[in-house]
């Protein structure tokens, strides 16, 4: 498969009243064509910021992307795009869905117009034709009576319908990449499944890539081909969904999976919570950011940043436990792997 997006050494820092801090620290990963990649992590781990940087939505005033960072879209660095190219890229080649559809839709503009706007920005198309396409998009997103619905305002929609119209809006230009930032967090569980199903079918139909941001491993299990687990602004483990689920290589991922309730098997299993709090964005970190909450914490973990290890094809984790010298007594998951060259 070809790489659609390559993110290299992404580092994003924010400036606020109290000083600067890094929200994303040296993150690199790729998105392949036609795949669904899930970016998983607790709130505040930098996953949303990473996604937003793909659309240039980092507020210029207080956020900045480091010079060395590169985001290559089809081989071209989008961070060096001209203003005109940005406008073409946003919406047409890369669409985005947000967590809170109510807030993300303009309350005073009709749904149909908001969807059609995406089209009218990118294509020379008459108002009427755009509207027709918007209605078609609504129908495709599974909204009944799209002709009537297009004339309504966001507050007249239910939560699931709003998210469906967000999807219709993001999809109308048939982008190559769809970014979904916690698309189902604000929805009921039954609706969640429907929305995920819709995204999956649209993804397959349009052969686009999907970047799913979520804190809920359960939600993405059925749809994600690959997963990247983020912690404190870094990717701690990345690999095929299968590998992540069944051959977990990082204590954080392991704890995350333990914290997900499952319907089948392991009856009477207690859900395991992860003790402690993730470090705050402003905290000064030395060594592994997860050390403070890790049950296998070793002296080196608080002194040096762990290196990256490779296991199965394309499965990486950054953890000292994979070092041959590590104390792996009572370790619940498999250790050992090839140390990657760190440049």
């Amino acid at each position, binding site marked *: 498969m070809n790489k659609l997006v390559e993110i290299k050494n992404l580092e994003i820092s924010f400036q606020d009243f109290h000083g600067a801090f890094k929200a994303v620290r040296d993150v690199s990963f790729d998105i392949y064509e036609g795949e669904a990649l899930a970016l998983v992590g607790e709130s505040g781990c930098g996953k949303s910021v990473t996604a*937003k940087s793909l*659309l*240039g*939505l980092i507020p210029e005033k207080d956020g900045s992307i480091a010079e060395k960072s590169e985001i290559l879209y089809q081989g071209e660095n989008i961070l060096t795009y001209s203003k005109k190219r*940005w*406008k*073409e*890229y*946003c*919406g*047409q080649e890369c*669409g*985005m869905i*947000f967590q*809170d559809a109510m*807030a*993300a*839709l*303009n*309350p*005073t*503009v009709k749904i149909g117009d908001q969807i059609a*706007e*995406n089209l009218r*920005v*990118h294509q020379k198309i008459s108002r009427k034709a755009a509207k027709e396409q918007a209605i078609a998009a609504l129908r495709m997103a599974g909204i009944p009576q799209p002709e009537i619905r297009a004339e309504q*305002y966001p*507050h*007249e929609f239910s939560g699931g319908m709003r998210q469906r119209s*967000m999807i219709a*809006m*993001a999809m109308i230009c048939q982008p190559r990449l769809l970014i979904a930032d916690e698309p189902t967090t604000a929805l009921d569980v039954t609706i969640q499944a429907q929305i995920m199903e819709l995204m999956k079918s649209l993804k397959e139909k349009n052969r686009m890539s999907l970047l799913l941001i979520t804190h809920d491993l359960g939600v993405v299990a059925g749809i994600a081909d690959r997963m990247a687990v983020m912690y404190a602004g870094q990717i701690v483990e990345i690999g095929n969904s299968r590998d992540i689920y069944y051959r977990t290589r990082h204590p954080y991922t392991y704890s995350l999976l333990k914290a997900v309730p499952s319907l089948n098997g392991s009856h009477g299993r207690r859900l395991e919570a992860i003790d402690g709090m993730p470090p705050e964005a402003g905290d000064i970190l030395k060594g592994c950011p997860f050390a403070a909450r890790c049950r296998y914490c070793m002296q080196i973990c608080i002194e040096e940043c762990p290196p990256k290890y490779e296991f199965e094809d394309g499965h990486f984790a950054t953890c000292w436990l994979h070092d041959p010298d590590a104390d792996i007594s009572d370790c619940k998951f498999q250790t050992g792997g090839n140390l990657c060259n760190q440049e």
Partner: protein
Amino acid sequence: MFRMIGKRILQMIPVLFIVSVISFMIVYFAPGDPANMYIKPEMNIQQIEEIRESLGLNASLGEQYLGWLKNVLHGNLGNSLVNHQSVADQIMEKLPATLKLMGVSFVLSLVCAVPLGLISGYRQESRVDKGISLFSYIGISIPSFWFAMMMIVIFTLKLKLLPNSGMRTVGVDSFWDQVCHMIMPAIVLSVYNTAVFTRYIRSNVVRELKEEYVITAKAKGVGTFGILTKHILKNCLLPVITLAGMNLANLVTGSIIIESIFGWPGMGTLGMSAITSRDYTMVMGVTMLTCLMLLIGNFIADVLYSVVDPRIKREVQKKNG
């Protein structure tokens, strides 16, 4: 919708009534005797009493008020104590001039304030924003009469560009002439409202820019101009409608001063001369009419607001079943 409008109109009646009572009392207790206008030195006390009687000035406060109210309910605002002409006729004669001035300056302030507010809100803390902010600070702080005076000094007396008084030059009846007469009073009258609206729109823009739908629009590839005009403008203008209705009071008050400075033949001039000559019926007429204008202004703002904002429209529909 119609029920709401009906309700609002009904609510206006008691307000008008109480305002009339208060104004009447203030006018009644004010010193100075309107009869003085008619009293000549050679008159004796009996003659003076007759005049007072004929003007209805000897009745008690209650009687006078009820008499006035009865007339008003019959559509008769009474006759001026000074020139015995119908108050209503005189007001109607002056009203168009005032409305014209107010309308022009209101439109002027909106036309200026919308782009200024949008720009300064979007380019927050930039040099442009600071300039616009300074301008709007000056706008809300400048004493209008002084501003008018300075304008007259500069444009009429020094540069001799614009006429300083009246609505038109005697004997000249061209549109251009009227525009020239209008320029200064309209600018002076609109400067306060322009500043208030600009500040308000700016803070709205700053607030709306933080909303997530702006991010959605950016993610769609909508440019700055599109975001401002298609998304933010509507959300910002909605509250401005209410503010505009409330600020009608400033226009009415402002026009009293401005009209008397520029000799604009409108209600303000009429009211001022009525006060100095203690022409009570006229004062009452002008007061009630301005009060009515205020109420109607607020009312229109309310209705407009609920028509334009889809969220409120639905609530109103719900409430009325």
